[in-house]
């Protein structure tokens, strides 16, 4: 920074208004309805009669500046320079000229970005850092996402599903991917208790905080080899890694035991049913890079069962509630096991407390 220039701070984000296309500014808050024209393309019609076309393209989210510049070029070429990204990390091109849609889609396809994700489709997988950037990851994020989306890409470029299907991935229980309310959630799991590094612990961590961090009270202060440290009661550990979050000397990463669990039936929208949490479908699948075939197959199976059985609009969780969990396990061929039965704080509230059963 050149001397003499005042250092700017706390300027906040740029005002979005400068990034809005004229048609948006003009019709801001005055949209009347929309229609999905074909996979990945929709039109919003304003009270004024103006039309705004949106073309949505898939993205790996991890984007190089080279690709971003290509998006910028496409925006200039087809959209007077206006584009946006979505809350699920897709890129959207905003057009006023219907005739430009086809050539834009063609160019996107050549670039390797399929167009779709609108309407009754699978959209991009919300996900996290994984081995690309995080210290906590029990699995990679981008790799599984790529493998699963390769397999399901057709459901992105089609709109043949009964309703929306939202998949998310988080590489550890911190759940930065907010997978806890997804139709299908892929969640990295540790399965081995923390291995305490007694040599560094008392230097790097506050022992009382470490002890307090454990929700199951599995951690006790202890003196090991003459040094103050902690001890883990392995029987009580359920691998949440909260101790690791507060103390680097408690790593849970473990190539042999880390892997992936699959969860189903969550949703966020208030449409029809209230928001729901995802529920455990498969407690553990191994980390099998580069393409995690077990995970890909499990997700496909679940998608197919839902796609075949759900009614129009019916999200995964609504579908399962209608047919019952027993039938879900039968149809997917997943085994119901002890792990599926909750045993945390509110476990009792998940037991079936009625005689309303399908026989």
């Amino acid at each position: 920074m050149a001397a003499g220039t005042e250092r700017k701070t706390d300027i906040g984000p740029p005002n979005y208004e400068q990034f809005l296309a004229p048609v948006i500014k003009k019709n801001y808050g005055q949209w009347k309805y929309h229609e999905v024209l074909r996979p990945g393309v929709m039109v919003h019609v304003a009270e004024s009669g103006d039309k705004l076309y949106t073309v949505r393209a898939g993205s790996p989210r991890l984007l190089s500046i080279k690709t971003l510049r290509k998006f910028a070029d496409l925006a200039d070429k087809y959209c007077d320079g206006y584009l946006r990204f979505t809350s699920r990390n897709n890129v959207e091109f905003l057009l006023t000229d219907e005739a430009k849609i086809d050539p834009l889609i063609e160019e996107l396809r050549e670039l390797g970005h399929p167009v779709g994700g609108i309407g009754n489709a699978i959209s991009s997988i919300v996900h996290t850092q994984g081995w690309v950037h995080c210290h906590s990851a029990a699995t990679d994020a981008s790799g599984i996402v790529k493998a699963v989306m390769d397999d399901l890409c057709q459901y992105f470029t089609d709109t043949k599903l009964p309703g929306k299907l939202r998949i998310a991935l988080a590489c550890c229980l911190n759940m930065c991917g907010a997978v806890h309310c997804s139709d299908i959630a892929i969640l990295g799991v540790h399965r081995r208790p923390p291995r305490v590094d007694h040599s560094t612990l008392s230097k790097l961590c506050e022992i009382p905080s470490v002890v307090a961090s454990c929700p199951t009270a599995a951690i006790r202060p202890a003196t090991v080899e003459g040094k103050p440290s902690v001890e883990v009661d392995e029987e009580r550990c359920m691998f949440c890694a909260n101790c690791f979050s507060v103390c680097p000397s408690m790593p849970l990463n473990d190539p042999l035991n880390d892997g992936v669990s699959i969860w189903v039936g969550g949703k966020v929208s208030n449409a029809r049913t209230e928001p729901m949490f995802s529920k455990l479908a498969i407690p553990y699948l191994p980390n099998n890079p580069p393409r995690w075939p077990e995970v890909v197959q499990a997700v496909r199976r679940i998608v197919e069962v839902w796609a075949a059985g759900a009614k129009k609009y019916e999200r995964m969780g609504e579908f399962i509630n209608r047919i019952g969990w027993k039938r879900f396990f039968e149809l997917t061929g997943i085994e119901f096991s002890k792990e599926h039965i909750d045993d945390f704080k509110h476990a009792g509230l998940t037991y079936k407390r009625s005689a309303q059963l399908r026989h």
Partner: protein
Amino acid sequence: MADSTGNGTPLLDELEKGPWPSFVKEIKSMAEDNKMSQDLLGQLEKSYRDKTGYWKHGGIVGVMGYGGGVIGRYSFLAEEYPNVAHFHTLRINQPSGWFYTADALRALCDVWERHGSGLTNMHGSTGDIVFLGTKTDELEPTFAELTKHGFDLGGSGSDMRTPSCCVGPARCEWACYDTLHITNDLTHHFQDELHRPAFPYKFKVKCAGCPNDCVASIARADMSIIGTWRDEIQIDQDEVKKYVESGIDIHRDIYANCPTRCIEWDGKELKIDNSNCVRCMQCINAMPKALRPGKDRGATILIGSKAPIVEGALLSSVLIPFIKIEPPYEEIKDLIERIWDVWGEHGKNRERVGEFIQRVGLGNFLEEIDLEPHPDMVAHPRENPYIFYEEYYEEGEEEEEEE
């Protein structure tokens, strides 16, 4: 070979195949002329081989005067991959609604080409532009260039996190308030809280224009502002008929999906019992040309959602059933500050506001922030008989009262 060790990346190469755009291609394309990306590729291939990550636990690092916005990251394999020995990310506060012009995007690219890996996330899970990986001494220069282009850092640590919102009135016919405006306004108003962590833990705000909640606010925000309306759903009966003609089955698709079954259809007229409609959006979603939210619009404010660590995941719960959302948003800012005061004073370290409310009790929390209890705040009144009656008569008192 794009990776720095020259051993090739046979495992990652597998992820260049297939129809979905490949993050490996992205890294490789940068690795052609960026050493950080080269080493990232190398270390990642090793992770794929060994089935484990090689990043160290955190590290406090940042730009001058800010407590957040940068995630410090160091490699365990610094010797092998020296260019990712430091590999910090910057979180850059996105413009509301993730709208850009081509030029703004290019400006960001130029900055990052000069100072970092050239890799980004568009966007991070909270909503920020994520600049993925650079060295400690590049942080200040990056920041200086960013502010020059009008961008600033987002949140990290125990602060207000970067608020985000759905596309709202910019492109959606259902927006019940101006999600972009309030998001931008709150972000600017609370710059200090965003940049200088001083809370018990993180505090996220997300604004969705209607109950479809396209920004997942009810699951992922300590404060969720969800648009809704108080009056009657607007019906265009002619358009209803057109939907019926074009194949919508009102009984099956509309009535049976209405959570309160408050819709009637006699073949001619669609009737909605608005007093029993819970504003779920389903009928409107299904027939966007025929139905629209009412005209008396505002939002429901909910509080406390979060991921499971440690006490289990939470969805946000209703704090204000209905409120008008109009600039300058004094009432909402005031509410937020009252919440921060109480939580800031009594919250434990690493206790999110949702957990805090559960610990102290919603009733007590309401008293502290000076809101009246309202039946809409609960799914149902208590089931257990363990009521804390707060006062009792002492002998003699009752008689006194009667005098």
